[in-house]
């Protein structure tokens, strides 16, 4: 079962971010980089801010990341999350991927135990519609 109920707002890929979601469909978390100068950027963007190249490559993310910051959400700003409260939204950083920060959820842990600097591992959440969504859980339980 998906982490959030089926009426959760989902992904509607657009011309500039479709490549990211195509990779998610293959259960691959990859970040966009300029194929001319190699500069990473996220969310995907149609032109490289460093060299103005428009060609891209998709760099594989490591399975593990670090919590840069997070919040514990207690108030439902959309009816779909009511049954999931409180839940954790975090910003993650990835070793070896400068300039990339990913907004995601940290799951499978009591919210009051989440900490900045915590190591988390990737899991894929299959939704009823749309591409699988990358979410994370504490590293020790990532394999389960």
């Amino acid at each position, binding site marked *: 079962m998906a982490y959030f109920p089926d009426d959760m707002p989902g992904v509607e890929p657009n011309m500039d971010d479709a490549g990211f979601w195509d990779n998610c469909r293959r259960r691959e978390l990859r970040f966009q980089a300029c194929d001319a100068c190699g500069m990473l950027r996220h969310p995907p963007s149609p032109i490289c801010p460093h060299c103005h190249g428009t060609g891209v490559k998709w760099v594989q993310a490591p399975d593990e990341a670090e919590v840069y910051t*997070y919040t514990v959400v207690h108030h439902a700003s959309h009816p779909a999350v009511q049954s999931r409260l409180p839940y954790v939204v975090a910003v993650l950083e990835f070793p070896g991927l400068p300039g990339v920060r990913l907004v995601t959820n940290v799951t499978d842990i009591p919210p009051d135990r989440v900490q900045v600097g915590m190591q988390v591992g990737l899991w894929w959440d299959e939704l009823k519609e749309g591409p699988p969504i990358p979410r994370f859980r504490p590293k020790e339980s990532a394999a389960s």
Partner: protein
Amino acid sequence: MSRHDRAATIVGCGQSRFTRWGGIMEKSQFQITAEAISSALKDSGLTARDVDGFASFSNDANEGPLMQVALGVPEMRWSSMVWGGGGGGSIAALSQACAAVESGQAEVVVVYRGLCQGQTRRFGRFGQGRTHGNFVHPYGLFAPPQMLAMVVRRFMHLYPITEDHLAEIALNARANANRNPNAVMHGREMTKKDYLGSRWIAEPLRLFDCCLETDGACAVIVTSRERARDLPAKAVQVVAVAHGSGPAWGSGPLGSNNMPDEDYASTNNRRVAKTLFGKAGVKPTDIDVAQIYDHFSGMVLMALEDYGFCGRGESGAFVAEGNIRPDGGLPLNTSGGQLSEAYVHGMNLLIEGVRQMRSESSTQIKDAELCLVTGGLGVSPTSGVILGRD
């Protein structure tokens, strides 16, 4: 006209009544906005026939060209809208009005914002069409308090900032609102216990760390100093005004996740602050009173640092020493701000700045000569102005 004579000057301000969201249903948002402009014109001694420009921000639905028709303005020579969906552009709209007046492209520009969240939508809720929504909505990151809670969390991780310091921002705002009969929270006192007992919205932000959701409209009138001399209203100088952004702030949700690391736990105002103080030729210690955009308490603490009122990581100690109270070194948000007066995307803070410079505030700071007013924090663009007593 000399450069001095052309200098932008605020000559009038007007506002609707302020209510909780959904409180103004008997009149349309457009109507109360038009009435706020009309009242600002009366305050200035000018009429609609003198107006030739409109400036707003934040996707204001009360379009300038429609406002021209509604108010009977014979000729429009300036219309502008600042990009960005939050309050970051409030003072940027003022800066556009000043640019119009000082360049001679217009003579009398109205800066305004009307916002009835009961008639449109609540900003604290999920909204379609957010930039990069695909990268936030599937995770339940929907609204500004959640997004900026993460910035505040990082700030509290890096520096000795505690819930006591967040509380002081909220308690000061409420105490000031209780001297302001027009404030939505007037008559509702708040104790530290009330603050700590308020429910979590998105940790580390409680309900009382978050701005109100209200209905209201505000307008100010900008013209040249030369024109202001012939008007009855007390003129307020725009000593320096600026807006802008550092790198990459526009790329994340509410600019909250992809700015450079050294900028992350900040408000994106350091560059604006440097420009402002440079143009004005004054230092932070010269500022007598400040109206800092208080959508969320923790962001105000960061702004105190970004504007140089205290050092990096020292804002907690700064507010704990009583500095932001009316008898402190930097009285803050003297109308009650957006935490306790009303949330009109920062335009009510600009009006309070004008009142301070005209000695008309309900929490008047004696002999105040300079007032800082900022636009929304932690977004792109951000903006600020130093107002001066004429």
